[in-house]
């Protein structure tokens, strides 16, 4: 038996329980063997220690098996409280008093344990109040009673007796009786309520213990009712014995539950593997197979998208879980009634199975199912990844189209407002000159000279426009000479560092050129810098463009449409723009442009 998750502290705790349990067992045996008025004697000698051992040992095993749950400890405490109760059969006054006063404590502990199964924690405020009440009922009230009631005749002396007050005794006795009724009846109600609240997978888990508990409590209730109604003692004793017998079977029910889950686990996983052989078609068939293997209809699968797969809405360096259609998924938080188990394959995270939190009790089952399905999960994960990337490509294409359309409109506008107007004026001027050539040659000559001026200006504007679209020098001679030209035209000193001598893809060179052009334009306009430095480096498959200035800094990328347009342009070719601009410390604009054609899987 291996117990994962068992810390040294808990190991010590279990050992302590075991030690106390042994002591208790010894004391109980002594008490039983030497005690009086126990019929039938052999049954009692056999059963009583056995029940105590069953609870304590099962409790220790449960605690070791699930160290994060308090249930195991509670079970063991039931056993120890049981031993405490058996001390009531002893002849020794101290032991007798203890056993007599706290003889029903074990009932409170077992109700607490059953209500808290499987985590050992009581979540409902009603449950909590109830448990506190019955603890009071089994400790405070009997103690109060013992203060005023002597032990029955033939029994050892009650050591805590203060004064024999039959009035108070009567009250205490009534409280105890009705209290027991309340406790037993309340336990039945609360356990049934627990059942009603539970989801089908949770019910499967709770069933053995819960029904045991309900049966015990019901029988106890009947016993008390029988006493109150003064039914014949034989009937009351029979019911009482039946109650004890069912109570004794609680540890067995717990162990049976474990055995059943182990058996069914093997079955489930076997069926799952067989079924997975046939799984291939249709989205959701794996989910259905897992759902029926784990018997959780609400089961869902989330696939792991590693960083840089580009799930919309996530930063590029984080991985994220998505569902089969590629939408982001949030994993359930503890306490929400659902939890998740991650599935790995060959050391890499593949998917997470989101399931009812009752399956936390059977982690081996979930893990086995996950391992059986790992290959299929990986395939489905790749499908989801593909879908995410297709969506990203579509979005990127839309952005690119947007950028291109805007550029085109700008060009048309510039052409219309600039060169076209000049050429119109030119044509008109020449028209007049033509008319005046004979009648007023001097005026005609002046007009013609004017027309030439317009032509020159139109040429200049067209040249500027062409440079704004894609400079010829960039196409013909590459980045180096084109950036030299940019640097020369800048109104401040520009140090041009090394530029790759080899030609880069046209789109890359274009993007790099415009990054520098826009950056230098901004430096000239806003930075109040004394000089700027431009460098282009090729690092692996990426062109890194940096423009640094020593100006006032504080550049805001959202403020200027130029920088925003750059970001759009770059993101359309999978590039990135980073602006570092602390106030007073100058500005650095850094663009990373991939040179290789990016296939979706080659992105780092």
């Amino acid at each position, binding site marked *: 038996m291996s117990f994962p998750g068992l810390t040294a502290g808990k190991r010590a705790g279990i050992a302590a329980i075991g030690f106390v349990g042994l002591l208790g067992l010894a004391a109980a045996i002594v008490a039983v063997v030497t005690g009086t008025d126990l019929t039938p004697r052999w049954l009692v000698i056999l059963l009583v220690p056995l029940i105590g051992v069953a609870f304590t040992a099962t409790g220790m095993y449960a605690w070791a098996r699930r160290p994060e749950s308090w249930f195991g400890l509670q079970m063991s405490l039931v056993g120890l409280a049981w031993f405490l109760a058996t001390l009531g059969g002893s002849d020794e006054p101290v032991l007798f008093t203890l056993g007599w006063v706290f003889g029903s404590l074990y009932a409170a502990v077992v109700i607490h344990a059953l209500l808290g199964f499987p985590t050992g924690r009581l979540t409902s405020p009603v449950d909590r109040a109830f448990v506190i009440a019955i603890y009071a009922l089994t400790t405070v009230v009997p103690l109060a009673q013992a203060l005023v009631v002597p032990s029955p005749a033939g029994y050892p002396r009650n050591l805590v007796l203060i004064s024999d007050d039959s009035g108070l005794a009567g009250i205490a006795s009534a409280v105890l009786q009705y209290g027991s009724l309340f406790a037993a009846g309340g336990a039945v109600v609360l356990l049934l309520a627990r059942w009603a609240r539970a989801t089908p997978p949770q019910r499967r888990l709770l069933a053995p213990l819960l029904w045991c508990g309900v049966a015990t409590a019901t029988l106890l209730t009947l016993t008390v009712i029988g006493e109150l109604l003064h039914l014949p003692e034989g009937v009351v004793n029979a019911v009482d014995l039946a109650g004890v017998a069912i109570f004794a079977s609680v540890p067995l029910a717990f162990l049976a539950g474990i055995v059943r889950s182990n058996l069914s686990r093997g079955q489930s996983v076997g069926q799952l593997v067989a079924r997975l052989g046939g799984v291939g078609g249709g989205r959701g068939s794996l989910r259905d197979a897992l759902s029926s293997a784990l018997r959780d209809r609400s089961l869902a699968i989330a696939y792991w998208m590693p960083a840089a797969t580009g799930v919309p809405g996530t930063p590029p360096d984080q991985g994220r879980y998505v569902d089969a259609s590629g939408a982001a998924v949030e994993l359930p938080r503890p306490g929400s009634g659902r939890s998740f188990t991650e599935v790995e394959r060959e050391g890499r995270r593949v998917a997470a199975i989101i399931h009812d939190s009752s399956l936390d009790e059977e982690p081996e089952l979930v893990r086995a199912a996950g391992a059986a399905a790992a290959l299929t999960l990986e395939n489905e994960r790749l499908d989801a990844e593909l879908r995410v990337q297709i969506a990203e490509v579509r979005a990127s294409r839309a952005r690119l189209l947007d950028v291109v359309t805007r550029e085109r409109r700008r060009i048309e506008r510039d052409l219309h407002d600039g060169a076209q107007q000049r050429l119109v004026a030119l044509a008109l001027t020449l028209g007049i000159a033509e008319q005046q050539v004979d009648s007023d040659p001097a005026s005609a000559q002046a007009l013609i000279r004017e027309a030439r001026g317009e032509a020159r200006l139109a*040429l200049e504007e067209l*040249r500027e426009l062409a440079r704004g679209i894609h400079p010829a020098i960039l196409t*013909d*001679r590459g980045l180096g000479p084109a950036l030299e*030209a940019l*640097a*020369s*035209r800048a*109104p401040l000193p520009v140090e041009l560092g090394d530029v790759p001598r080899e030609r880069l893809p046209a789109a890359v060179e274009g993007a790099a050129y415009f990054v520098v052009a826009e950056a230098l334009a901004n430096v000239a306009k806003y930075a109040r810098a004394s*000089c700027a430095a431009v460098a282009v480096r090729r690092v692996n498959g990426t062109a890194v463009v940096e423009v640094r200035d020593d100006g006032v800094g504080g550049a805001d990328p959202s403020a200027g449409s130029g920088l925003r347009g750059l970001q759009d342009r770059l993101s359309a070719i999978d590039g990135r723009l980073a602006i570092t601009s602390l106030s007073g410390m100058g500005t650095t604009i850094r663009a990373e442009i991939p040179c290789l054609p990016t296939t979706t899987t080659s992105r780092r």
Partner: protein
Amino acid sequence: MRVVIAEDSVLLREGIVRLLEEAGHEVVGQAGDAEDLVRKVTAHRPDIAIVDVRMPPTNTDDGLRAALELRERTPETSVLVLSQYVEEGYAHELIGGGAAGVGYLLKDRVADVERFVDAVARVGEGGSALDPEVVAQLLGRRRRDDPLDALTPREREVIALMAEGRSNSAIAQELVVTERAVEKHVTSIFGKLSLPPAAQDHRRVLAVLRYLDARA
């Protein structure tokens, strides 16, 4: 003068031919690609060859290569190179060994008829002609603690015109001042920049260009 023109755009070539003939020059050969140019120049030995940088067969810088080849083979033929954009590298390659009989103009400059004809004449006679835009780019390159900042605005105009290859009288005409004033400016410039005095205009061009080059 006798001229050979190498230009693959027929429209432009015709325009230049007409322009030059109006100005009194004789166009003895027209070439549509680099090889044809070399053949025609070698055959006709003109005073000047006007060459477009970009020509067949590769349409990158065949014209430039041919022009440089001609400078070696037929040094008595001046070369005036036309380019679509300013490329400092071309200027360096053309003028590297010497600026006599070399010119580099932007194609657009052809539309400026007087300037173009003037440049052709200058280069054909052994002088130099650098396009004002090329000069502007060279001069415009800002430097920290730029020695050129020591020049007065008028001196900057003069040095730009000097770099273009203009003579003192041409500069005086351009700036509407006396030739003496120009001479004074030139001396001042050479002094401020510690340039060696140069007698001929094309040597001046070389000196200034070398200076600007070293500054870069």
